[in-house]
């Protein structure tokens, strides 16, 4: 078997297991309230980390590029209570225009 296929199959199996572990082992029942509180905060913590890394990380460096400007424009749209579609389009358009003039 080629190295490529080994990588494809091992990464695929690992990802399937990572996604399934929680729902298969702990699915369908409510967590005790203390751990529910902690698990409930996974959402804001992970979302904020995704915002930070997707806007400011390039491999293993912090960068300030057109994505940050797009994010800032998107944040303005969020504050103005724009629908998610508008937020996403505003962010992408801002980044694209800046790259066009750069």
């Amino acid at each position, binding site marked *: 078997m080629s190295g490529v296929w080994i990588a494809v199959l091992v990464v695929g199996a690992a990802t399937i297991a990572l996604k399934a572990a929680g729902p298969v082992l702990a699915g369908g029942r409510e967590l005790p309230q203390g751990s529910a509180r902690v698990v409930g905060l*996974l959402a*804001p913590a992970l979302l904020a980390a995704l915002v930070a890394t997707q806007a400011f990380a390039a491999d293993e460096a912090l960068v300030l590029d057109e994505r940050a400007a797009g994010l800032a424009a998107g944040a303005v749209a969020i504050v103005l209570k724009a629908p998610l579609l508008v937020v996403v389009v505003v962010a*992408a358009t801002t980044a694209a225009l800046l790259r066009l003039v750069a």
Partner: protein
Amino acid sequence: MPESRTARRFGPAGAGLRAVMPLLPAVLAFGVSFGVLAQAAGMGAVASIVMSMTTFAGSAQFAVVSVLGAGGTVAAAIGAAVLLNARYGPMALSAAHAFRGGRLRRLLEAQLLVDESWALAQRDGRFDRRVLLGAGAGLYLGWTSGTAIGVAAGDSLADPATLGLDAAFPALFLGLLAPLLRDRDARAAALAGAAIAICLTPITPAGIPVIAATAACLAGLRRPAAAPAPSYGQRPPAAQRSGGPEAKR
């Protein structure tokens, strides 16, 4: 909410599919670029498409292509990808209570969990599994068909970054985070999560910063389990101030 009318007509899965529509052009474009890059790295058409169908996670797949394309070992490619996807462990755990049915069904449905579908399924502090499935199905179709198009088309297509599509994702996640920030503990967890991710980005391999940011949810430990939310006036101010540093532990 504009989704509510859609939710009545098509159910939450339809609402999830509808909610993910604005993202599909970006997901399709990144699927295409994965297909193109995988061909350039010599992965082969079938392996590229099988990877999109089974792994179904952009960053990890790009990592495999870039490591193998740069002449890295298979072990290094696998290590980078598994690290990047490790965040799905805590993400799926946070949604686990919403899954229904037998083990096989939960295993299969959990495969539609990716960053975007998981984030869209956060509804008013609850996790809506049917939104996850609707949004995840749309993303799955976009990602796999994009990959197939990229594999077939080669490098004759535009780079998604030129269209600013890479800036769409952080803005989406911010838009989904914003309504959660009404809760004070959620604000503390979000701030700490972002701080951890930013601080670790320059010093750890990609993937680690997002995993480490999950430690921010320990901010939830400082609230007594039984206390319901609205008693804001009664909580001593000292307890609020201890939130930041404690959250980063």
